[in-house]
């Protein structure tokens, strides 16, 4: 069975017109929340569902909850619903919070019950104005259930603010920068308590799995990975925006439904700014399935799919993103601060038609040298992205380096 391309589960219900679903409508549509104690084992159900975290790293949700629930000691824990969504081109978390805030709250309440947490923090990117307003209004409606144990914390701007240790650091100290691990946040997090940092989409799916069960969740999914997911289609596509797809749907199917064409697309950035450039040809037949993508050296990541038009230069697009990622370094670790800056400067020079001698060799050397040398995985994500740029746009990079001119547009400067 193949489900409709836009398979609505989280996004079922009223139109996505910018207004949040109120609590009365939410329970009229989905019923009140079944709590873990009152029904079958939710953690087991999450494990059986195969639901993976949707913040980017893709860690199994059930396993994460199980580890916290079976912790040593009697300390109460903390649940952080992570809606920072610092990934600039991704819109799925802010869209979810702005329209279905009660699913996120349901998921956080279930997580708190399942792992024994006495505090819940809704961590929402301050720039996502509609999401912040929707979450605040929804929290007020849920006051009887949430009581004094829940609060909202507005995440600072920036790409790294949503990284789990940075989330905890910001809530604890007001400093939104990653910390050295170990200790993991699951051991010592918010207020030094064991902390579950879970992406808001993952929590919302947990709220549906709690109601309908893992077998229901697994009814969708064409290949190895079962279920559905939110994705953001962006770039050279007519109907850019957030879609909810059955896992295993190919990129080409969704992109064409949204008005894109393979012959008008040069490449697709799959998985986020930490993701992987893929030629349009390879991307078009690629199943959007975490297991299948992993087997192809890709990552589903946060579900971002950014289409580069055939008329644009990959070197230039890469320069803009690596420049952003270098600026996004928390500037705590030397190899990230200096390595990404040098990578970005060399790429920008190549893109601008002003290469210094040895720029391409510098980029090729810094990619392996920078990997793995930071407190968090920011440098690893950035150099992985750069390695994919050399794979897909290698000839263009060489042309830029050799001639100072753009192989796609014919201009010096590489700008369309």
């Amino acid at each position: 069975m193949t489900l409709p391309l836009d398979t609505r589960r989280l996004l079922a219900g009223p139109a996505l017109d910018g207004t949040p679903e109120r609590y009365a409508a939410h329970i009229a549509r989905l019923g009140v929340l079944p709590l873990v104690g009152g029904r079958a084992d939710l953690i087991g159900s999450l494990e059986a569902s195969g639901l993976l975290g949707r913040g980017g790293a893709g860690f199994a949700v059930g396993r994460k909850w199980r580890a916290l629930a079976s912790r040593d000691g009697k300390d109460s824990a903390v649940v952080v619903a992570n809606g920072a969504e610092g990934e600039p081109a991704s819109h799925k978390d802010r869209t979810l919070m702005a329209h279905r805030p009660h699913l996120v709250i349901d998921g956080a309440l279930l997580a708190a019950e399942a792992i024994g947490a006495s505090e819940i923090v809704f961590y929402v990117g301050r720039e996502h104005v509609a999401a912040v307003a929707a979450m605040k209004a929804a929290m007020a409606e849920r006051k009887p259930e949430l009581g004094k144990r829940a609060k909202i914390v507005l995440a600072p701007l920036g790409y790294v603010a949503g990284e789990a240790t940075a989330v905890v650091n910001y809530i604890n100290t007001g400093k939104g920068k990653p910390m050295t691990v170990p200790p993991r946040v699951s051991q010592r997090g918010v207020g030094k308590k064991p902390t579950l940092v879970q992406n808001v989409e993952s929590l919302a799916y947990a709220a549906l799995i709690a109601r309908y069960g893992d077998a229901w969740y697994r009814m969708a999914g064409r290949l190895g990975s079962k279920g559905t997911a939110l994705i953001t289609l962006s770039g050279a596509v007519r109907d850019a925006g957030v879609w909810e797809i059955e896992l295993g749907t190919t990129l080409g199917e969704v992109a064409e439904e949204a008005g894109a064409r393979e012959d008008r697309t040069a490449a697709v950035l799959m998985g986020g700014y930490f993701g992987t450039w893929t030629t349009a040809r390879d991307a078009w037949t690629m199943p959007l399935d975490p297991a299948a993508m992993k087997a192809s050296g890709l990552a589903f990541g946060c579900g971002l799919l950014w289409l580069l038009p055939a008329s644009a230069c990959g070197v230039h697009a890469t320069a803009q993103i690596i420049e952003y990622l270098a600026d996004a370094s928390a500037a705590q670790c030397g190899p990230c601060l200096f390595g990404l800056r040098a990578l970005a400067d060399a790429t920008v020079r190549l893109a601008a038609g002003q290469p210094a001698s040895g720029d391409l060799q510098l980029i090729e050397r810094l990619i392996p040298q920078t990997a793995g040398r930071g407190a968090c995985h920011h440098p690893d994500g950035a150099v992985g992205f750069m390695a994919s740029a050399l794979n897909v746009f290698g000839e263009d990079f060489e042309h830029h380096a050799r001639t100072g001119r753009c192989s796609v547009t014919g201009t010096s400067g590489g700008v369309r």
Partner: protein
Amino acid sequence: MDQKLRIDWILCDGYSLCSPEAPEVIDLDEWGYPIIRPGVIAEHELKDVKRAVGACPMSALSLVPQDFDKRS
């Protein structure tokens, strides 16, 4: 248990005092930050490596068991 070098990258400020103590294990990048040779540290290298650990003014280097990151 085999040991490995761990760098607290937030503490490390690139003083570059570690590498000269154990050049066969610790190289430096162009900004003076350490590059650790992959793999385990041999018995005969341990003395130099311990001196390198002691040389860091930020206490950013430490010797830890090989499976340090995997233990929860």
